[in-house]
């Protein structure tokens, strides 16, 4: 009778709880570190974090980032360093949301939000420009473009989870989540990381 056990299995399955979510009607919570649409962040004083170093473009496996740096105008600097991102474009027809650009960025200028519901209908909309990616100069929150479907809360702390250890590499911050200063949110206090299962200190991305 072993032949018929399979039939019992499929029959039983009919009465089990479904795991599928009927997506557009009912949306699941996203994981905290969900990789979504990028933002370009600003410091607390409104200066742009991007220094136009092109490391993100270099590391991008899909080659979807195009950056050109330029010297800061002396009378009106855009970023606190020597150079700034003069052109910054991400082509979302190519982007695979691997987050390597975020890992590569030395100044935490580029991070990813949780937004994934942005379906554009033209190529021009698909290529996000610097102006579209930059957070608002007043509030520090991402731009809401017409074709994007932001859920409440999605535009808060869009760079908040970034570093598990101090970006500066200060050993006193080992095992603590620390943030660099950010427009609209300031410098948030470092938090202890949840104890990991292994005794080793988290190398990167140990926060929850």
């Amino acid at each position, binding site marked *: 009778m072993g032949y018929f056990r*399979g*039939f019992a*299995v*499929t*029959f039983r*399955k*009919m009465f*089990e709880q*479904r*795991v*599928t979510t*009927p997506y557009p009607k009912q949306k699941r919570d996203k994981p905290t570190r969900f990789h979504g649409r990028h933002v370009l962040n600003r410091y607390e004083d409104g200066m742009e974090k991007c220094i136009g170093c092109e490391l993100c473009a270099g590391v991008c496996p899909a080659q979807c980032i195009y950056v050109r740096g330029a010297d800061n105008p002396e009378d009106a600097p855009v970023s606190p360093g020597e150079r700034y991102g003069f052109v910054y474009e991400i082509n979302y027809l190519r982007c695979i949301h691997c987050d390597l650009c975020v890992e590569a960025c030395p100044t935490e200028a580029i991070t990813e939000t949780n937004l994934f519901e942005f379906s554009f209908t033209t190529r021009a909309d698909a290529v996000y420009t610097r102006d579209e990616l930059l957070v608002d100069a007043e509030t520090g929150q991402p731009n809401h473009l017409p074709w994007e479907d932001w859920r409440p809360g999605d535009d808060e702390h869009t760079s908040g989870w970034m570093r598990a250890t101090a970006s500066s590499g200060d050993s006193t911050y080992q095992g603590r989540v620390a943030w660099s200063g950010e427009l609209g949110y300031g410098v948030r206090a470092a938090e202890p990381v949840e104890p990991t299962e292994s005794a080793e200190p988290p190398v990167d991305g140990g926060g929850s």
Partner: protein
Amino acid sequence: MSHVIPSGPLVLAADPLLNQGLGPGIVGIVLLKVVVAFVLLLVSVMLMIWFERKLVADMHNRIGPSVAGPFGILQTLADGIKLFFKEDLVPDRADRIVFKLAPYLSLIPAFLVFAIVPIGGDFSGDGTVTLFGERTYLQVADPPVGVLFFLALSSIAVYGVMLAGWSSGSKYPLLGSVRASAQMISYEAALGLAIASVFLTSGSLSTHDIVAGQVAGHWNVLATGVVPFLVFLVAGTAELNRPPFDLVEAEQELVGGFHTEYSSLRFALFFLAEFMNVITMSAIAVTLFLGGPAGPILTDTLGWVWPILWFGLKVFAFLFGFVWLRATLPRFRYDQLMDLGWKVLIPVSLGWFLLIATLNVARDRGWPILVVVLGGVAVMVVAAAMLSGAVDKARADRLAGAEDEGVDA
């Protein structure tokens, strides 16, 4: 329309409706029955496709179609409308005429088979219902050749599949159609032999008479000894190209099988025919083996509803079974399929057919039944042993031959 056809054995039917001659009212009732059967079949196909997708989804722990209409019940309609507006493509290397003909060769037999199925009527009486004051059968036609009509049409449907693959001018459809014709022809033999057992028991080919012979619980499934019913189920599933015998359109191997090159409405016709065949095959199985519309009539008023209800329930049980098979069983390998057909189903159904024939003769001649049964079983066992011995010998020879030639067996 004024002339009167004398009553008598009409080619079309022994339906009492047609025995009094043809008036406009009679023709109207016949047309009404045709239209109702047509619409009923189309609507039930629509519901069947929805039901299958929903049930398979349930068995896969998914949700299934849920957007079009309540519970996604209009999904099939939406798909049909979408297919209607798709580009109708005829491949460059296709044989254009045959390519366009093939879907209809599949579809029309599927429609016609349903005409001989009695879907209602109180068979504890004479199986008639009264429509507009005229007594008639609840089936479009009751030809004396009955079930042979079904076998003939399902053979024609093979042409639809075969010609579709042949005329596409493409590799996968050709492979699919070669498989299809081989599969459908080999299983039709087993199917026919299983049905022949029913003829022997019922003594008639007419579907109406077969159903009438099964009143009061004397269903053919028991009267023929269950084996023909099981053979019919397996062979019928193979004939329908349903899983686990869906090698014809094995998506993983053949893309879409014989209908790979079809698109738009022509594809929809194939799809329609396929699901229509599932329903008609279930209806035929119910008619032949499970007493058709037979069942208790529980109320005096609206008594004619009950047979239709019982018939619907029985067909539904088959449809559920087909979907259940699809959700559970993996696909057969091609050689397994052929082995099952030729080495198991055909011998078994042939042996059973001979046994029933012998029993009938024994009953007529007054031979001792027990002796006949024991003798028959002994002959069948010997025959089965000889057959399996022959098969084993052939395989051993083949393997030895392969080794001689240095081929990996």
